[in-house]
């Protein structure tokens, strides 16, 4: 009877609950097969004809016997069943007496055939939802949804905008049954005007989604806001304005317009403090939000590395005036189609300045150049994008987007150089006009249960027109450019570059069975490029001295076609997944420089291999190996001379083929929210088999560079690890990184091997108090060693940082401090600098007004110092930064 106790405690309770104990009789017996063998654990189910009687059931013992408690004088429909036997049904009528009833079951081998069931969904019954009629609870003075919610019984709203209903947290806020803008529930709660709200529905969606951060087991509730018929359109937002010491200003509006079919977001920014209020996160939101990362990880990383993202990150300037506007619109057109688009426009004036000491490491005697560079940039760009999404069914989806970028950058610069050979000042003027047009189509369709097909096609058009002028009163690059004598030297370079690129790839995903997949792909990459340039001297008498005669100037065209076929086989053994891949590429290219033509073809087989071992959901090892090829760009091929800088001339090589390198990566990852532990180890290794190598002729500070195919191996190795653990309310973190690389340098006909090694470690601690000030403290130590010409150069850097945040009453206080000690051990120069920023923000809860006072670069530090290493040169640069700024800001919530 042990099994009964475990699975059917109710067997006994049923008998007890039903009141008329005296009306019960026992039906018992044995269940056997046709050979009289007892059937243990057979099921007996008795369904009463009388609706007032209960359904009963029993399970036979090891010896095949059973006991069923039924009501007297009732008729039951009895079914006896056992796996592999035909179920036996019969009608049983009880009397006043106990009854013995045996059953015999016949074997049924047909029952044991595999059955596949086609399912039709059940009729859906509307569940109860709690609906609040808001008008019954509000006074009419409430501003925002949060104020109206507070008036509803059982509903609480905290300062940040988190809502709880009868103690359960609301994790999803829908408006008119759809996600509201970014889907952040706080955005809806803090911004929807209270007078637009008609009803609030509480949907009790019990969900055991324990793993997702922020969602908790058993307390997921959704809230749906129903808007009043005439108030389905509204605007909301924030405006921030500030002024500061020494002519500083800031205006930053962030406005939203909502209607059930259209969502619009406008962000504007006018300031001269070097702040960019539009962040990478805003950009990601314009591009489709967090959903983009989940659905399309590759393009997320492209976004992250795009030049717009770099623009957003750029920090080092001495002055900056910024005018910025961004507009984002989402419109649902039909049930299955969505269009979204954005326009971002920016006009900024930036000043930068740097002072660099360049140490040239030659065989003769190393010598030093002092170079100062100051630039004024006037950058204008506008980018616009339209995306169309079409999702007709779960099997098919299509996305199309069109992107345009127009750029106009102008800059004026002044370079002064002091070196043993020459002291000179050169003025520069650059004007770049560029236009970039991209079209992208992705389509995916589930062809059958086992096959899914995807297609991706891109067309890219780029047209750049950079113009550069150099002004100096001394001859530069005397042995390389044929300058005619003049009082003032003006050198003009015009470039025009036009490129059409087409990429298309189609891939079939074939599920062979549960543990084996085969992916085949076919694709093409084609590029058609034109590059035109002239270098000439504009003489004071108005005539031109074109450097054509000395071999300068390009009229170059380049066509490149790559057709490829790929095969990937993914399979799983135990906890490990393996994916060997092979790609066969067929390359075809030709170049033309004036009348000189050159063409070539090549076939390459590029293998890749990845494996993943998943010990469990939170502990994994990943391994990847690939053989990679990279073909040259048009500027590496254009084989006439071209001026590169005031001190360098360059010439491409039309016979360049492809670079080839191996790369290997191994990483281990473990995280445990339960133990508050995060561990990450990573090592990667690259080996260059064939690559482009720069050949340099150096005279003083003047260089002539060209490229050749080089096949001596070069290595690159990286090892990094990070561990973080939270104990009580403090998180401790240790991060360490080791990097090594070696490379050849060909300088003045001499080939040498150089290497660089660096080690960096950071240790930090961060507090997570709810009511006390929070502080983060850390210390970082860097060691770098460069080895060239048997000269070893050592650099060391110490960095100490402290961040503080304290939320108290209605104030938020933030401050940060960083101390850097920089030591160039080879020439024994030391430099220390520290930077500090602080801000104090005040806002009464539920008030639309907020006030802030902040100071950046408190100590008025003038520059940052860092070092860099390339083939034959070590640079030690000071980059000048914005001076101390003190600002007072007012923010108003619309």
């Amino acid at each position, binding site marked *: 009877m042990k*099994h009964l106790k*475990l*699975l059917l405690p*109710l067997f006994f309770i049923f008998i007890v609950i039903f009141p008329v104990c005296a009306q019960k009789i026992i039906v018992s017996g044995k269940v056997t097969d046709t050979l009289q063998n007892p059937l243990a*654990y*057979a*099921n007996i189910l008795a*369904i009463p004809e009388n*609706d007032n009687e209960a*359904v009963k059931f029993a*399970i036979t013992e090891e010896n095949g016997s059973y006991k069923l408690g039924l009501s007297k004088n009732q008729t039951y429909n009895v079914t006896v*069943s*056992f*796996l*592999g036997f035909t*179920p036996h049904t019969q009608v049983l009528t009880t009397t006043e007496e106990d009854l013995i009833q045996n059953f015999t079951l016949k074997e049924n081998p047909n*029952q*044991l055939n595999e*059955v*596949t*069931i086609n*399912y039709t*969904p*059940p009729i*859906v*019954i*509307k*569940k109860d*939802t709690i609906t609040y009629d808001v008008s019954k609870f509000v006074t009419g003075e409430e501003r925002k949804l949060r104020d109206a919610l507070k008036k509803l019984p059982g509903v609480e709203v905290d300062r940040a905008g988190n809502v709880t209903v009868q103690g359960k947290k609301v994790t999803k806020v829908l408006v008119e049954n759809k996600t509201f803008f970014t*889907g952040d529930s706080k955005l809806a709660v803090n911004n929807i005007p209270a007078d637009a709200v008609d009803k609030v529905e509480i949907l009790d969606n*019990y969900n*055991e*989604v324990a793993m*997702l951060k*922020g969602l908790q*087991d*058993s*307390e997921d509730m959704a809230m*749906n806001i129903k808007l009043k018929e005439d108030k389905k359109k509204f605007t909301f937002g924030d405006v921030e304005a500030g002024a500061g010491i020494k002519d500083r200003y800031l205006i930053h509006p962030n406005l939203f317009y909502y209607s059930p079919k259209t969502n619009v977001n406008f962000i504007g920014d006018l300031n001269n403090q070097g702040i960019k209020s539009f962040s990478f996160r805003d950009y990601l939101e314009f591009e489709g939000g967090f*959903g983009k990362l*989940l659905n399309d*990880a590759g393009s997320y990383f492209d976004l992250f590395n795009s030049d717009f993202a770099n623009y957003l990150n750029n920090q080092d300037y001495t002055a900056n005036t910024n005018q910025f506007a961004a507009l984002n619109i989402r419109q*649902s057109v039909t049930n299955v189609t969505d269009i979204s688009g954005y326009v971002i426009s920016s006009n900024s004036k930036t000043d930068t300045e740097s002072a660099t000491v360049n140490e040239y490491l030659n065989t003769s005697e190393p010598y030093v150049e002092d170079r100062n560079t100051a630039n004024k940039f006037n950058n204008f760009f506008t980018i616009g994008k339209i995306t169309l999404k079409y*999702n007709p069914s779960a099997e098919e989806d299509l996305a199309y987007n069109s992107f345009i970028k127009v750029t106009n950058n102008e800059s004026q610069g002044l370079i002064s150089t002091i070196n043993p050979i020459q002291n000179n000042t050169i003025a520069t003027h650059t004007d770049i006009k560029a236009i970039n047009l991209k079209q992208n189509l992705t389509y995916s369709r589930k062809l059958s249960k086992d096959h899914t097909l995807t297609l991706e096609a891109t067309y890219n058009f780029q047209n750049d027109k950079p113009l550069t002028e150099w002004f100096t009163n001394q001859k530069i690059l005397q042995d390389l450019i044929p300058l005619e004598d003049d009082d003032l030297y003006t050198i003009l370079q015009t470039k025009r570059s036009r490129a059409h690129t087409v990429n298309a790839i189609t891939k079939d995903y074939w599920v062979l069975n549960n*543990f084996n997949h085969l992916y085949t792909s076919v694709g093409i990459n084609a590029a058609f490029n034109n590059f035109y340039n002239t270098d000439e001297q504009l003489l004071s008498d108005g005539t031109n001295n074109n450097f054509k005669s000395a071999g300068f100037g390009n009229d170059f065209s380049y066509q490149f076609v790559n057709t490829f076929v790929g095969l990937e086989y993914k399979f*799983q*053994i*135990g*906890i490990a997944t*393996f994916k060997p891949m092979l790609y066969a590429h067929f390359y075809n290219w030709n170049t033309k420089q004036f009348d000189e033509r050159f063409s070539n073809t090549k076939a390459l087989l590029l293998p890749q*291999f990845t*494996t993943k*071992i998943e010990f469990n*959901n*939170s502990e994994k090892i990943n391994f990847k*190996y690939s053989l990679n090829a990279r073909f040259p760009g048009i500027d590496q091929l254009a084989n006439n001379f071209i001026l590169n800088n005031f001190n360098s001339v360059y010439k491409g090589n039309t016979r360049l083929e492809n670079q080839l390198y191996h790369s290997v990566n191994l990483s281990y990852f*473990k995280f445990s*929210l*339960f133990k508050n*532990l995060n561990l990450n180890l990573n090592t990667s290794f690259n080996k260059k088999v064939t690559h482009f190598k720069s050949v340099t002729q150096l005279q003083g500070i003047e260089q002539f560079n060209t490229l050749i195919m080089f096949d001596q191996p070069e290595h690159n190795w990286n090892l990094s690890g990070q561990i973080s653990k939270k104990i009580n309310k403090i998180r401790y973190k240790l991060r360490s990184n080791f990097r090594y690389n070696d490379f050849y340098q060909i300088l003045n006909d001499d080939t040498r091997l150089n290497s660089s090694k660096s080690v960096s470690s950071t240790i930090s601690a961060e507090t997570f108090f709810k009511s006390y000030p929070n502080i983060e403290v850390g210390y970082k130590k860097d060691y770098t060693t460069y080895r060239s010409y048997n000269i070893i150069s050592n650099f060391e850097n110490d960095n100490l940082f402290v961040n503080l945040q304290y939320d108290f009453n209605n104030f938020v206080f933030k401050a940060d401090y960083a101390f850097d000690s920089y030591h160039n051990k080879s020439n024994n120069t030391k430099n220390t600098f520290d930077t500090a920023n602080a801000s104090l923000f005040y806002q009464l809860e539920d008030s639309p007004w907020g006030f802030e006072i902040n100071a950046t670069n408190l100590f008025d530090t003038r520059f940052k110092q860092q070092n860099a290493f390339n083939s034959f040169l070590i640079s030690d640069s000071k980059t000048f930064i914005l001076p101390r700024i003190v600002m007072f800001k007012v923010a108003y919530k619309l």
Partner: protein
Amino acid sequence: MIKLLILSIIFLSISSSSEPIDKEPINKILYSAMKIDDNLKPSDKNKSLNLIEKSIDKNDIQFELLFNSNKSIYKLKEELDTEDISKKIAQLYFGGIYVYYADTLKEKNICQAQAYGEFFIFPNETFKWELTKESAKISGYLCYKAKTVKIVTNDKGVFKKEVIAWYTPEIATNFGPKGYHGLPGLILELQEGNQIFYASNIALNTNIKIKIEKPSRGHEVSYHEFLNIGKKIGNENRP
């Protein structure tokens, strides 16, 4: 060197998956998961920008119930990981982190959960079924309707979820999906709140050579303690 690494990885994973076999034949039932959301009109479903909704609509999540006369185990169907994050979200939604194991001879009825980077084992609930006379034919099997309530108690209160199971006495077993044992027949359709699990493939008396083994890895806690751990972590990591 790389070859050695690959070989040792293969060896490691094979050895960790080999298991001794049981003598009784194993029955395998595949359940597909579906979400019914009566709060959205059918025409609004495709418009949903909600990621979780989209992931669930797009992916076919399947669970396996393996059982013989005295043991059963229920978990996510094992298949090749497609690295599709939307599929992982949908798996989580339907309870992919839970493995239910029952052994009637050894009186074990437990659930193993993989959450927050750790494993936990807690006792599975025993359900009080209300057997009704309501019947329906599901794919040729005569099924009866049974009802019960799933109750979760923690310090925020008591939460009840309505559970409806359609079982067929024609397939005689007391084991069911998602730890819902104790009915006089196999559950062909289980509705727990907004989620439906329906049997999509029934294979009885198969040749599968797997041992139905009790999950042993995990901190032994009560269900209440498990929920509290989740709440504590949620509170700590709330922005």
